[in-house]
Protein backbone atom coordinates (compact mmCIF):
# COMPACT_ATOMS: atom_id res chain seq x y z
CA UNK A 1 0.00 0.00 0.00
CA UNK A 2 2.65 2.47 1.03
CA UNK A 3 4.53 1.59 -2.16
CA UNK A 4 1.50 2.62 -4.21
CA UNK A 5 1.34 5.91 -2.33
CA UNK A 6 5.06 6.58 -2.82
CA UNK A 7 4.78 5.69 -6.49
CA UNK A 8 1.79 7.99 -6.86
CA UNK A 9 3.91 10.76 -5.43
CA UNK A 10 6.76 10.03 -7.88
CA UNK A 11 4.29 10.19 -10.75
CA UNK A 12 2.73 13.39 -9.43
CA UNK A 13 6.14 15.03 -9.08
CA UNK A 14 6.94 14.14 -12.64
CA UNK A 15 3.74 15.74 -13.90
CA UNK A 16 4.10 18.85 -11.80
CA UNK A 17 7.60 19.26 -13.17
CA UNK A 18 6.25 19.13 -16.72
CA UNK A 19 3.77 21.84 -15.77
CA UNK A 20 6.37 23.99 -14.05
CA UNK A 21 8.94 23.68 -16.86
CA UNK A 22 6.54 24.77 -19.55
CA UNK A 23 5.83 28.29 -18.36
CA UNK A 24 3.82 29.21 -21.45
CA UNK A 25 1.44 26.33 -20.80
CA UNK A 26 1.25 27.14 -17.08
CA UNK A 27 0.55 30.80 -17.75
CA UNK A 28 -2.17 30.06 -20.30
CA UNK A 29 -3.87 27.64 -17.90
CA UNK A 30 -3.85 30.25 -15.19
CA UNK A 31 -4.56 33.33 -17.30
CA UNK A 32 -7.37 32.08 -19.48
CA UNK A 33 -9.87 32.15 -16.60
CA UNK A 34 -8.98 35.77 -16.01
CA UNK A 35 -10.15 36.55 -19.51
CA UNK A 36 -13.46 34.80 -18.85
CA UNK A 37 -13.81 36.65 -15.60
CA UNK A 38 -13.48 40.10 -17.08
CA UNK A 39 -15.14 39.36 -20.40
CA UNK A 40 -18.28 37.86 -18.91
CA UNK A 41 -18.12 40.27 -15.99
CA UNK A 42 -18.35 43.25 -18.31
CA UNK A 43 -20.71 41.72 -20.85
CA UNK A 44 -23.35 40.52 -18.41
CA UNK A 45 -22.89 43.15 -15.72
CA UNK A 46 -26.50 44.30 -16.00
CA UNK A 47 -28.20 40.88 -15.85
CA UNK A 48 -28.30 41.03 -12.04
CA UNK A 49 -30.98 43.66 -12.46
CA UNK A 50 -33.29 40.83 -13.60
CA UNK A 51 -33.19 39.50 -10.03
CA UNK A 52 -32.71 36.04 -8.58
CA UNK A 53 -28.92 36.28 -8.31
CA UNK A 54 -28.92 36.87 -4.57
CA UNK A 55 -26.47 39.75 -4.95
CA UNK A 56 -26.34 43.20 -6.45
CA UNK A 57 -22.93 42.65 -8.07
CA UNK A 58 -22.65 40.27 -11.02
CA UNK A 59 -18.98 39.67 -10.22
CA UNK A 60 -19.99 38.05 -6.91
CA UNK A 61 -22.16 35.65 -8.87
CA UNK A 62 -19.68 35.12 -11.68
CA UNK A 63 -16.55 34.10 -9.72
CA UNK A 64 -17.76 30.59 -8.76
CA UNK A 65 -19.08 30.16 -12.31
CA UNK A 66 -15.69 30.87 -13.85
CA UNK A 67 -13.92 28.70 -11.25
CA UNK A 68 -16.06 25.70 -12.14
CA UNK A 69 -15.98 26.30 -15.89
CA UNK A 70 -12.19 26.59 -15.80
CA UNK A 71 -11.90 23.39 -13.78
CA UNK A 72 -13.86 21.62 -16.51
CA UNK A 73 -12.06 23.16 -19.45
CA UNK A 74 -8.53 22.60 -18.16
CA UNK A 75 -9.11 18.99 -17.03
CA UNK A 76 -10.94 17.75 -20.07
CA UNK A 77 -7.66 18.01 -22.03
CA UNK A 78 -5.87 15.55 -19.72
CA UNK A 79 -6.29 12.83 -22.33
CA UNK A 80 -4.08 14.76 -24.75
CA UNK A 81 -1.19 14.39 -22.32
CA UNK A 82 -1.85 10.67 -21.96
CA UNK A 83 -2.02 10.33 -25.71
CA UNK A 84 1.33 12.04 -26.06
CA UNK A 85 2.81 9.70 -23.47
CA UNK A 86 1.47 6.72 -25.41
CA UNK A 87 2.85 7.96 -28.70
CA UNK A 88 6.22 8.75 -27.21
CA UNK A 89 6.43 5.32 -25.62
CA UNK A 90 6.53 6.66 -22.08
CA UNK A 91 3.38 4.86 -20.98
CA UNK A 92 4.69 1.55 -22.35
CA UNK A 93 7.98 2.13 -20.54
CA UNK A 94 6.15 2.54 -17.24
CA UNK A 95 3.85 -0.40 -17.92
CA UNK A 96 6.85 -2.73 -18.27
CA UNK A 97 8.09 -1.71 -14.79
CA UNK A 98 6.54 -3.00 -11.57
CA UNK A 99 4.89 0.40 -10.94
CA UNK A 100 1.30 0.08 -9.73
CA UNK A 101 -1.26 0.85 -12.44
CA UNK A 102 -3.28 2.83 -9.94
CA UNK A 103 -0.22 4.97 -9.17
CA UNK A 104 0.23 5.71 -12.86
CA UNK A 105 -3.30 7.02 -13.17
CA UNK A 106 -3.47 8.64 -9.74
CA UNK A 107 -0.33 10.65 -10.46
CA UNK A 108 -2.41 12.33 -13.16
CA UNK A 109 -5.36 12.77 -10.84
CA UNK A 110 -3.33 14.33 -8.02
CA UNK A 111 -1.43 16.58 -10.40
CA UNK A 112 -4.61 17.78 -12.10
CA UNK A 113 -6.22 18.29 -8.70
CA UNK A 114 -3.35 20.46 -7.49
CA UNK A 115 -3.35 22.52 -10.67
CA UNK A 116 -7.13 22.94 -10.52
CA UNK A 117 -6.96 24.00 -6.87
CA UNK A 118 -4.26 26.59 -7.64
CA UNK A 119 -6.21 27.85 -10.62
CA UNK A 120 -9.40 28.13 -8.54
CA UNK A 121 -7.70 30.03 -5.74
CA UNK A 122 -6.16 32.45 -8.23
CA UNK A 123 -9.56 33.17 -9.79
CA UNK A 124 -11.08 33.76 -6.36
CA UNK A 125 -8.25 36.14 -5.45
CA UNK A 126 -8.56 38.01 -8.73
CA UNK A 127 -12.30 38.34 -8.09
CA UNK A 128 -11.48 39.79 -4.70
CA UNK A 129 -9.17 42.27 -6.39
CA UNK A 130 -11.97 43.22 -8.73
CA UNK A 131 -14.24 43.91 -5.78
CA UNK A 132 -16.15 40.64 -5.43
CA UNK A 133 -17.69 39.83 -2.07
CA UNK A 134 -17.65 36.31 -0.58
CA UNK A 135 -20.07 36.25 2.35
CA UNK A 136 -19.44 32.53 2.99
CA UNK A 137 -15.83 33.30 3.92
CA UNK A 138 -12.88 30.93 3.73
CA UNK A 139 -15.05 27.87 4.42
CA UNK A 140 -17.26 28.64 1.46
CA UNK A 141 -14.28 29.19 -0.80
CA UNK A 142 -12.76 25.90 0.35
CA UNK A 143 -15.95 24.06 -0.59
CA UNK A 144 -15.91 25.70 -4.02
CA UNK A 145 -12.27 24.67 -4.57
CA UNK A 146 -12.94 21.07 -3.48
CA UNK A 147 -16.03 20.87 -5.68
CA UNK A 148 -14.13 22.15 -8.71
CA UNK A 149 -11.27 19.71 -8.04
CA UNK A 150 -13.78 16.84 -7.91
CA UNK A 151 -15.44 18.01 -11.12
CA UNK A 152 -12.01 18.29 -12.73
CA UNK A 153 -11.18 14.75 -11.56
CA UNK A 154 -14.33 13.36 -13.18
CA UNK A 155 -13.58 14.89 -16.56
CA UNK A 156 -9.81 14.46 -16.33
CA UNK A 157 -10.17 10.74 -15.67
CA UNK A 158 -12.75 10.31 -18.44
CA UNK A 159 -10.52 12.21 -20.82
CA UNK A 160 -7.57 9.95 -19.94
CA UNK A 161 -9.69 6.86 -20.48
CA UNK A 162 -10.83 8.22 -23.83
CA UNK A 163 -7.25 9.02 -24.84
CA UNK A 164 -6.17 5.45 -24.09
CA UNK A 165 -9.11 3.89 -25.86
CA UNK A 166 -9.46 5.89 -29.06
CA UNK A 167 -5.87 7.12 -29.34
CA UNK A 168 -6.74 9.99 -31.65
CA UNK A 169 -6.37 13.66 -30.92
CA UNK A 170 -9.34 14.45 -33.10
CA UNK A 171 -11.74 12.46 -30.93
CA UNK A 172 -10.67 14.27 -27.79
CA UNK A 173 -10.84 17.67 -29.47
CA UNK A 174 -14.24 16.82 -30.94
CA UNK A 175 -15.77 15.62 -27.69
CA UNK A 176 -14.36 18.51 -25.68
CA UNK A 177 -15.55 21.12 -28.12
CA UNK A 178 -18.91 19.42 -28.18
CA UNK A 179 -19.26 19.26 -24.38
CA UNK A 180 -17.64 22.36 -22.90
CA UNK A 181 -20.13 25.08 -23.80
CA UNK A 182 -23.35 23.03 -23.45
CA UNK A 183 -22.24 21.77 -20.03
CA UNK A 184 -21.35 25.31 -19.00
CA UNK A 185 -24.50 26.97 -20.25
CA UNK A 186 -26.82 24.19 -19.08
CA UNK A 187 -25.95 25.25 -15.55
CA UNK A 188 -26.31 28.22 -13.30
CA UNK A 189 -22.70 29.27 -14.01
CA UNK A 190 -23.64 32.58 -15.61
CA UNK A 191 -27.37 32.89 -15.12
CA UNK A 192 -29.57 32.66 -12.03
CA UNK A 193 -31.65 29.46 -12.04
CA UNK A 194 -34.86 31.47 -11.67
CA UNK A 195 -34.08 33.20 -14.98
CA UNK A 196 -33.50 29.92 -16.84
CA UNK A 197 -36.25 28.27 -18.92
CA UNK A 198 -37.74 25.52 -16.80
CA UNK A 199 -36.56 22.66 -19.10
CA UNK A 200 -33.02 23.95 -18.81
CA UNK A 201 -33.31 23.98 -15.05
CA UNK A 202 -34.37 20.34 -15.09
CA UNK A 203 -31.57 19.33 -17.43
CA UNK A 204 -29.10 21.21 -15.22
CA UNK A 205 -30.09 19.00 -12.30
CA UNK A 206 -28.33 16.13 -14.07
CA UNK A 207 -25.27 18.15 -15.04
CA UNK A 208 -22.24 17.38 -12.83
CA UNK A 209 -20.88 20.84 -13.58
CA UNK A 210 -24.04 22.27 -12.07
CA UNK A 211 -23.60 20.07 -8.98
CA UNK A 212 -20.22 21.69 -8.38
CA UNK A 213 -21.79 25.05 -9.13
CA UNK A 214 -24.69 24.63 -6.71
CA UNK A 215 -22.54 23.18 -3.90
CA UNK A 216 -19.90 25.89 -4.24
CA UNK A 217 -22.31 28.76 -4.55
CA UNK A 218 -24.45 27.61 -1.63
CA UNK A 219 -21.41 27.25 0.64
CA UNK A 220 -20.23 30.72 -0.39
CA UNK A 221 -23.56 32.37 0.38
CA UNK A 222 -24.50 34.10 3.58
CA UNK A 223 -26.62 31.17 4.73
CA UNK A 224 -25.22 27.95 3.28
CA UNK A 225 -27.63 25.04 2.87
CA UNK A 226 -25.27 22.28 4.05
CA UNK A 227 -27.73 19.58 3.01
CA UNK A 228 -27.45 20.76 -0.59
CA UNK A 229 -23.67 21.15 -0.32
CA UNK A 230 -23.20 17.60 1.02
CA UNK A 231 -25.72 16.10 -1.38
CA UNK A 232 -24.16 17.56 -4.52
CA UNK A 233 -20.63 17.22 -3.18
CA UNK A 234 -21.24 13.56 -2.34
CA UNK A 235 -22.63 12.89 -5.81
CA UNK A 236 -19.55 14.52 -7.35
CA UNK A 237 -17.24 12.46 -5.13
CA UNK A 238 -19.00 9.24 -6.12
CA UNK A 239 -18.76 10.17 -9.78
CA UNK A 240 -15.07 11.05 -9.43
CA UNK A 241 -14.28 7.71 -7.79
CA UNK A 242 -16.18 5.88 -10.53
CA UNK A 243 -14.40 7.81 -13.28
CA UNK A 244 -10.94 7.13 -11.80
CA UNK A 245 -11.77 3.45 -11.38
CA UNK A 246 -12.90 3.32 -14.99
CA UNK A 247 -9.71 4.99 -16.19
CA UNK A 248 -7.54 2.49 -14.29
CA UNK A 249 -9.56 -0.33 -15.85
CA UNK A 250 -8.87 1.16 -19.26
CA UNK A 251 -5.23 0.02 -18.95
CA UNK A 252 -6.49 -3.50 -19.53
CA UNK A 253 -8.25 -2.64 -22.73
CA UNK A 254 -5.18 -0.65 -23.76
CA UNK A 255 -3.01 -3.71 -23.16
CA UNK A 256 -5.30 -5.85 -25.24
CA UNK A 257 -4.95 -3.48 -28.15
CA UNK A 258 -1.17 -2.95 -28.22
Amino acid at each position, binding site marked *: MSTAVTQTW*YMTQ*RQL*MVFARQPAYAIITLVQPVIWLFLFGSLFRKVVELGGFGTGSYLDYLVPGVVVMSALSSNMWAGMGTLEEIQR*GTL*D*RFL*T*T*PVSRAALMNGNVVNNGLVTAAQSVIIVLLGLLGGADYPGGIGGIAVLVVASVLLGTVFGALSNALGMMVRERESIIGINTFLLLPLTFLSSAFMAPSQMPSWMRHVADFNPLNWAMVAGRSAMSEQPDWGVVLGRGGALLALAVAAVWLSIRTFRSYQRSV
Partner: protein
Amino acid sequence: MNTRAPAVEARQLIKTYPGDVTALNGMDITVEPGTVFGLLGPNGAGKSTTVKILTTLARPDSGTATVAGHDVLRHPDRVRRAIGVVAQGSGADPVATGRENLRLQGRLFGLKGAPLARRVDELLERFTLAEAAGRQVKGYSGGMRRRLDVALGLVHRPEVLFLDEPTTGLDPEARTAMWEEIGRLAGDEGLTILLTTHYLEEADRLAERIAIVDRGRVVVEGTPDGLKGELRGDAVHLELRAPLGEAGRTLLEGALGALAGVHEVLIDRARVSVRADDGAAAMPRLLGELERAGVSVATATVARPSLDDVYLRYAGRRYAEADPRSGARDDSLVLAGGAR
Protein backbone atom coordinates in the same frame (compact mmCIF):
# COMPACT_ATOMS: atom_id res chain seq x y z
CA MET B 1 17.06 -18.75 -10.91
CA ASN B 2 18.30 -22.03 -12.31
CA THR B 3 21.08 -21.11 -14.70
CA ARG B 4 20.31 -23.94 -17.05
CA ALA B 5 16.70 -22.92 -17.64
CA PRO B 6 16.19 -20.75 -20.74
CA ALA B 7 16.14 -17.00 -20.06
CA VAL B 8 13.30 -16.63 -22.52
CA GLU B 9 11.01 -19.33 -23.77
CA ALA B 10 8.00 -18.72 -25.98
CA ARG B 11 5.80 -21.56 -27.20
CA GLN B 12 3.26 -21.30 -30.00
CA LEU B 13 2.38 -17.66 -29.45
CA ILE B 14 -0.57 -16.52 -31.48
CA LYS B 15 -1.80 -12.97 -31.59
CA THR B 16 -4.44 -11.50 -33.85
CA TYR B 17 -5.34 -7.84 -33.93
CA PRO B 18 -8.79 -6.48 -34.73
CA GLY B 19 -9.55 -6.68 -38.44
CA ASP B 20 -8.13 -10.23 -38.63
CA VAL B 21 -4.54 -9.10 -38.81
CA THR B 22 -2.41 -12.04 -37.71
CA ALA B 23 0.66 -10.66 -36.00
CA LEU B 24 1.95 -13.92 -34.56
CA ASN B 25 1.22 -17.30 -36.00
CA GLY B 26 2.87 -19.85 -33.75
CA MET B 27 6.00 -18.05 -32.58
CA ASP B 28 8.55 -20.28 -30.84
CA ILE B 29 11.73 -18.91 -29.29
CA THR B 30 14.24 -20.23 -26.79
CA VAL B 31 17.01 -17.97 -25.55
CA GLU B 32 19.82 -19.40 -23.44
CA PRO B 33 20.88 -17.31 -20.45
CA GLY B 34 23.84 -15.00 -20.93
CA THR B 35 23.55 -14.91 -24.70
CA VAL B 36 22.55 -12.34 -27.30
CA PHE B 37 19.65 -13.55 -29.38
CA GLY B 38 18.57 -11.73 -32.51
CA LEU B 39 15.07 -11.72 -33.96
CA LEU B 40 15.56 -10.71 -37.55
CA GLY B 41 12.81 -9.86 -39.96
CA PRO B 42 11.14 -7.12 -41.94
CA ASN B 43 8.66 -4.66 -40.43
CA GLY B 44 5.38 -6.37 -39.75
CA ALA B 45 6.96 -9.81 -39.32
CA GLY B 46 5.90 -9.97 -35.67
CA LYS B 47 9.11 -9.01 -33.88
CA SER B 48 7.66 -6.12 -31.90
CA THR B 49 4.52 -8.03 -31.01
CA THR B 50 6.71 -10.83 -29.64
CA VAL B 51 8.64 -8.32 -27.53
CA LYS B 52 5.41 -6.74 -26.29
CA ILE B 53 4.12 -10.12 -25.12
CA LEU B 54 7.42 -11.11 -23.49
CA THR B 55 7.61 -7.78 -21.67
CA THR B 56 4.02 -8.16 -20.32
CA LEU B 57 2.71 -5.26 -22.37
CA ALA B 58 0.41 -7.28 -24.59
CA ARG B 59 -1.35 -10.59 -24.06
CA PRO B 60 -1.26 -13.37 -26.63
CA ASP B 61 -4.49 -14.97 -27.86
CA SER B 62 -2.91 -18.33 -27.07
CA GLY B 63 0.45 -19.87 -26.32
CA THR B 64 2.77 -19.61 -23.34
CA ALA B 65 5.92 -17.71 -22.50
CA THR B 66 8.34 -17.51 -19.61
CA VAL B 67 10.98 -14.87 -19.03
CA ALA B 68 13.69 -15.35 -16.40
CA GLY B 69 11.71 -18.39 -15.28
CA HIS B 70 8.45 -16.52 -14.68
CA ASP B 71 5.26 -16.98 -16.64
CA VAL B 72 4.41 -13.73 -18.41
CA LEU B 73 0.68 -14.29 -18.06
CA ARG B 74 0.51 -15.62 -14.52
CA HIS B 75 3.24 -13.55 -12.87
CA PRO B 76 3.69 -10.39 -14.93
CA ASP B 77 4.97 -8.53 -11.88
CA ARG B 78 7.85 -10.96 -11.35
CA VAL B 79 8.71 -10.72 -15.04
CA ARG B 80 8.72 -6.91 -14.85
CA ARG B 81 11.23 -6.97 -12.01
CA ALA B 82 13.57 -9.19 -13.98
CA ILE B 83 13.56 -7.40 -17.32
CA GLY B 84 14.82 -4.18 -18.85
CA VAL B 85 13.01 -2.88 -21.90
CA VAL B 86 14.29 -0.54 -24.57
CA ALA B 87 11.34 -0.07 -26.88
CA GLN B 88 11.36 1.40 -30.37
CA GLY B 89 10.02 4.78 -29.35
CA SER B 90 12.11 6.78 -26.92
CA GLY B 91 10.17 6.54 -23.71
CA ALA B 92 12.28 9.15 -21.95
CA ASP B 93 10.48 12.20 -20.64
CA PRO B 94 11.62 15.11 -22.86
CA VAL B 95 10.99 17.78 -20.26
CA ALA B 96 12.99 16.01 -17.54
CA THR B 97 16.78 15.86 -17.54
CA GLY B 98 18.68 12.69 -18.28
CA ARG B 99 19.51 12.26 -14.61
CA GLU B 100 15.88 12.81 -13.54
CA ASN B 101 14.69 10.22 -16.03
CA LEU B 102 17.13 7.66 -14.69
CA ARG B 103 16.36 8.48 -11.08
CA LEU B 104 12.60 8.04 -11.57
CA GLN B 105 13.12 4.77 -13.41
CA GLY B 106 15.25 3.49 -10.53
CA ARG B 107 12.66 4.54 -7.97
CA LEU B 108 9.96 2.59 -9.77
CA PHE B 109 12.09 -0.49 -9.12
CA GLY B 110 12.43 0.40 -5.47
CA LEU B 111 15.94 1.86 -5.58
CA LYS B 112 16.57 4.94 -3.47
CA GLY B 113 19.07 7.05 -1.61
CA ALA B 114 22.80 6.70 -2.11
CA PRO B 115 22.70 3.38 -4.01
CA LEU B 116 20.31 4.93 -6.54
CA ALA B 117 22.46 8.04 -6.93
CA ARG B 118 25.54 5.86 -7.44
CA ARG B 119 23.83 3.67 -10.01
CA VAL B 120 22.56 6.71 -11.93
CA ASP B 121 26.03 8.30 -12.00
CA GLU B 122 27.55 5.01 -13.08
CA LEU B 123 25.15 4.71 -16.02
CA LEU B 124 25.54 8.35 -17.05
CA GLU B 125 29.28 7.82 -17.09
CA ARG B 126 29.11 4.54 -18.94
CA PHE B 127 26.84 5.88 -21.68
CA THR B 128 28.84 9.13 -21.97
CA LEU B 129 25.90 11.20 -20.84
CA ALA B 130 27.52 12.65 -17.71
CA GLU B 131 28.03 16.02 -19.33
CA ALA B 132 24.44 16.23 -20.55
CA ALA B 133 22.97 14.74 -17.36
CA GLY B 134 21.54 18.05 -16.17
CA ARG B 135 20.00 19.04 -19.50
CA GLN B 136 16.43 18.40 -20.61
CA VAL B 137 16.18 15.36 -22.85
CA LYS B 138 14.37 17.32 -25.57
CA GLY B 139 17.72 18.89 -26.42
CA TYR B 140 19.48 15.53 -26.85
CA SER B 141 20.58 14.18 -30.22
CA GLY B 142 19.07 10.94 -31.53
CA GLY B 143 22.12 8.96 -30.45
CA MET B 144 22.13 10.47 -26.96
CA ARG B 145 18.44 9.68 -26.53
CA ARG B 146 18.99 6.12 -27.60
CA ARG B 147 21.88 5.73 -25.15
CA LEU B 148 19.66 7.14 -22.41
CA ASP B 149 16.94 4.66 -23.37
CA VAL B 150 19.36 1.79 -22.98
CA ALA B 151 20.57 3.20 -19.65
CA LEU B 152 16.93 3.42 -18.50
CA GLY B 153 16.51 -0.26 -19.28
CA LEU B 154 19.55 -1.15 -17.16
CA VAL B 155 18.98 0.91 -13.99
CA HIS B 156 17.79 -2.03 -11.90
CA ARG B 157 20.36 -4.53 -13.28
CA PRO B 158 17.86 -6.73 -15.13
CA GLU B 159 18.50 -10.39 -15.96
CA VAL B 160 17.07 -10.06 -19.44
CA LEU B 161 17.32 -6.95 -21.60
CA PHE B 162 14.99 -6.43 -24.55
CA LEU B 163 16.27 -4.16 -27.30
CA ASP B 164 13.58 -3.49 -29.88
CA GLU B 165 15.26 -2.14 -33.00
CA PRO B 166 17.89 -0.25 -31.03
CA THR B 167 19.48 1.48 -34.00
CA THR B 168 16.51 2.30 -36.22
CA GLY B 169 16.56 5.97 -37.13
CA LEU B 170 20.15 6.53 -36.02
CA ASP B 171 22.75 7.95 -38.37
CA PRO B 172 25.57 5.55 -39.33
CA GLU B 173 27.99 7.00 -36.80
CA ALA B 174 25.54 6.72 -33.90
CA ARG B 175 24.64 3.23 -35.08
CA THR B 176 28.24 2.07 -34.94
CA ALA B 177 28.60 3.57 -31.46
CA MET B 178 25.44 1.79 -30.33
CA TRP B 179 26.72 -1.51 -31.70
CA GLU B 180 29.88 -1.14 -29.69
CA GLU B 181 27.81 -0.40 -26.62
CA ILE B 182 25.60 -3.44 -27.12
CA GLY B 183 28.68 -5.55 -27.73
CA ARG B 184 30.03 -4.44 -24.34
CA LEU B 185 26.69 -5.16 -22.65
CA ALA B 186 26.76 -8.66 -24.02
CA GLY B 187 29.95 -9.21 -22.04
CA ASP B 188 28.22 -8.28 -18.79
CA GLU B 189 28.03 -11.20 -16.47
CA GLY B 190 24.87 -13.17 -16.94
CA LEU B 191 22.95 -10.55 -18.93
CA THR B 192 20.74 -12.07 -21.59
CA ILE B 193 19.83 -9.82 -24.50
CA LEU B 194 16.96 -10.30 -26.89
CA LEU B 195 17.44 -7.98 -29.81
CA THR B 196 15.09 -7.34 -32.68
CA THR B 197 16.30 -5.76 -35.85
CA HIS B 198 15.54 -5.45 -39.50
CA TYR B 199 19.17 -4.81 -40.31
CA LEU B 200 20.90 -7.97 -41.45
CA GLU B 201 24.30 -6.59 -40.62
CA GLU B 202 23.20 -5.75 -37.10
CA ALA B 203 22.00 -9.27 -36.37
CA ASP B 204 25.10 -10.74 -38.00
CA ARG B 205 27.37 -8.59 -35.93
CA LEU B 206 25.71 -8.67 -32.51
CA ALA B 207 23.78 -11.87 -32.06
CA GLU B 208 25.16 -15.27 -31.18
CA ARG B 209 21.97 -16.89 -32.37
CA ILE B 210 19.49 -15.57 -34.88
CA ALA B 211 15.91 -16.47 -35.58
CA ILE B 212 14.59 -15.25 -38.89
CA VAL B 213 10.98 -14.23 -38.52
CA ASP B 214 8.53 -14.03 -41.35
CA ARG B 215 4.74 -13.60 -41.18
CA GLY B 216 4.48 -14.16 -37.46
CA ARG B 217 6.68 -17.21 -36.99
CA VAL B 218 10.30 -18.30 -36.97
CA VAL B 219 11.31 -19.72 -40.34
CA VAL B 220 14.84 -20.69 -39.40
CA GLU B 221 17.13 -20.40 -36.41
CA GLY B 222 20.85 -20.81 -35.85
CA THR B 223 24.16 -19.02 -35.48
CA PRO B 224 24.92 -16.41 -38.16
CA ASP B 225 27.82 -18.49 -39.46
CA GLY B 226 25.85 -21.71 -39.28
CA LEU B 227 23.02 -20.21 -41.26
CA LYS B 228 25.33 -18.82 -43.88
CA GLY B 229 27.25 -22.11 -43.94
CA GLU B 230 24.12 -24.03 -44.79
CA LEU B 231 24.06 -22.27 -48.09
CA ARG B 232 26.25 -24.09 -50.54
CA GLY B 233 28.47 -21.92 -52.64
CA ASP B 234 27.97 -18.39 -53.93
CA ALA B 235 24.88 -16.38 -54.57
CA VAL B 236 24.40 -15.13 -58.11
CA HIS B 237 21.85 -12.43 -58.63
CA LEU B 238 20.65 -11.36 -62.04
CA GLU B 239 18.36 -8.47 -62.75
CA LEU B 240 16.30 -8.84 -65.91
CA ARG B 241 15.25 -5.97 -68.14
CA ALA B 242 11.62 -7.08 -68.02
CA PRO B 243 9.70 -9.25 -65.55
CA LEU B 244 8.92 -12.78 -66.64
CA GLY B 245 5.47 -14.28 -66.99
CA GLU B 246 4.43 -17.44 -65.14
CA ALA B 247 5.17 -19.75 -68.08
CA GLY B 248 8.56 -18.21 -68.88
CA ARG B 249 9.50 -18.41 -65.24
CA THR B 250 8.89 -22.12 -64.90
CA LEU B 251 10.66 -22.84 -68.15
CA LEU B 252 13.69 -20.78 -67.21
CA GLU B 253 13.90 -22.19 -63.71
CA GLY B 254 14.08 -25.65 -65.21
CA ALA B 255 16.67 -24.68 -67.80
CA LEU B 256 18.97 -22.87 -65.37
CA GLY B 257 18.63 -25.54 -62.70
CA ALA B 258 19.83 -28.15 -65.21
CA LEU B 259 23.19 -26.39 -65.60
CA ALA B 260 26.19 -28.03 -63.96
CA GLY B 261 27.21 -26.56 -60.60
CA VAL B 262 23.93 -24.71 -60.17
CA HIS B 263 21.80 -25.72 -57.20
CA GLU B 264 18.90 -23.50 -56.44
CA VAL B 265 17.10 -21.20 -58.82
CA LEU B 266 14.53 -18.74 -57.70
CA ILE B 267 12.85 -16.28 -60.03
CA ASP B 268 10.77 -13.48 -58.69
CA ARG B 269 9.43 -11.19 -61.42
CA ALA B 270 12.57 -9.60 -62.86
CA ARG B 271 14.96 -11.05 -60.28
CA VAL B 272 16.82 -14.29 -60.74
CA SER B 273 18.66 -15.72 -57.74
CA VAL B 274 20.89 -18.71 -58.19
CA ARG B 275 23.10 -20.66 -55.86
CA ALA B 276 26.24 -22.00 -57.52
CA ASP B 277 29.34 -23.90 -56.37
CA ASP B 278 31.53 -21.39 -58.12
CA GLY B 279 29.66 -18.22 -58.94
CA ALA B 280 32.21 -16.80 -61.35
CA ALA B 281 32.39 -20.03 -63.33
CA ALA B 282 28.63 -20.38 -63.49
CA MET B 283 28.04 -16.84 -64.64
CA PRO B 284 28.86 -17.26 -68.39
CA ARG B 285 26.76 -20.43 -68.56
CA LEU B 286 23.86 -18.68 -66.88
CA LEU B 287 24.11 -15.69 -69.18
CA GLY B 288 24.33 -17.94 -72.20
CA GLU B 289 21.24 -19.85 -71.16
CA LEU B 290 19.34 -16.62 -70.63
CA GLU B 291 20.40 -15.29 -74.01
CA ARG B 292 19.20 -18.48 -75.66
CA ALA B 293 15.85 -18.00 -73.95
CA GLY B 294 15.70 -14.47 -75.37
CA VAL B 295 15.80 -12.80 -71.96
CA SER B 296 18.00 -9.73 -71.63
CA VAL B 297 19.91 -9.09 -68.44
CA ALA B 298 20.37 -5.65 -66.86
CA THR B 299 22.78 -6.47 -64.03
CA ALA B 300 24.60 -9.50 -62.71
CA THR B 301 26.39 -9.95 -59.38
CA VAL B 302 28.18 -12.75 -57.61
CA ALA B 303 28.37 -12.69 -53.81
CA ARG B 304 29.47 -14.80 -50.90
CA PRO B 305 26.48 -16.01 -48.89
CA SER B 306 24.95 -13.34 -46.66
CA LEU B 307 22.07 -13.35 -44.23
CA ASP B 308 20.09 -11.78 -47.03
CA ASP B 309 20.52 -15.04 -48.92
CA VAL B 310 19.53 -17.00 -45.84
CA TYR B 311 16.42 -14.91 -45.65
CA LEU B 312 15.72 -15.38 -49.34
CA ARG B 313 16.05 -19.11 -49.03
CA TYR B 314 13.77 -19.55 -46.05
CA ALA B 315 11.22 -16.85 -46.60
CA GLY B 316 11.19 -17.24 -50.38
CA ARG B 317 11.56 -13.50 -50.95
CA ARG B 318 14.38 -11.06 -51.01
CA TYR B 319 14.71 -9.32 -47.70
CA ALA B 320 14.15 -5.74 -48.81
CA GLU B 321 11.07 -6.70 -50.79
CA ALA B 322 9.45 -8.38 -47.82
CA ASP B 323 9.61 -5.17 -45.86
CA PRO B 324 6.38 -3.38 -46.75
CA ARG B 325 7.26 -0.15 -45.03
CA SER B 326 10.90 0.23 -45.88
CA GLY B 327 11.56 3.25 -48.04
CA ALA B 328 14.26 3.60 -50.64
CA ARG B 329 16.80 4.72 -48.06
CA ASP B 330 16.07 1.78 -45.83
CA ASP B 331 16.33 -0.62 -48.74
CA SER B 332 19.80 0.49 -49.57
CA LEU B 333 20.79 0.15 -45.93
CA VAL B 334 19.33 -3.31 -45.71
CA LEU B 335 21.03 -4.44 -48.89
CA ALA B 336 24.28 -2.80 -47.97
CA GLY B 337 23.84 -4.55 -44.64
CA GLY B 338 24.24 -7.99 -46.16
CA ALA B 339 27.71 -9.26 -45.26
CA ARG B 340 29.07 -9.84 -48.71
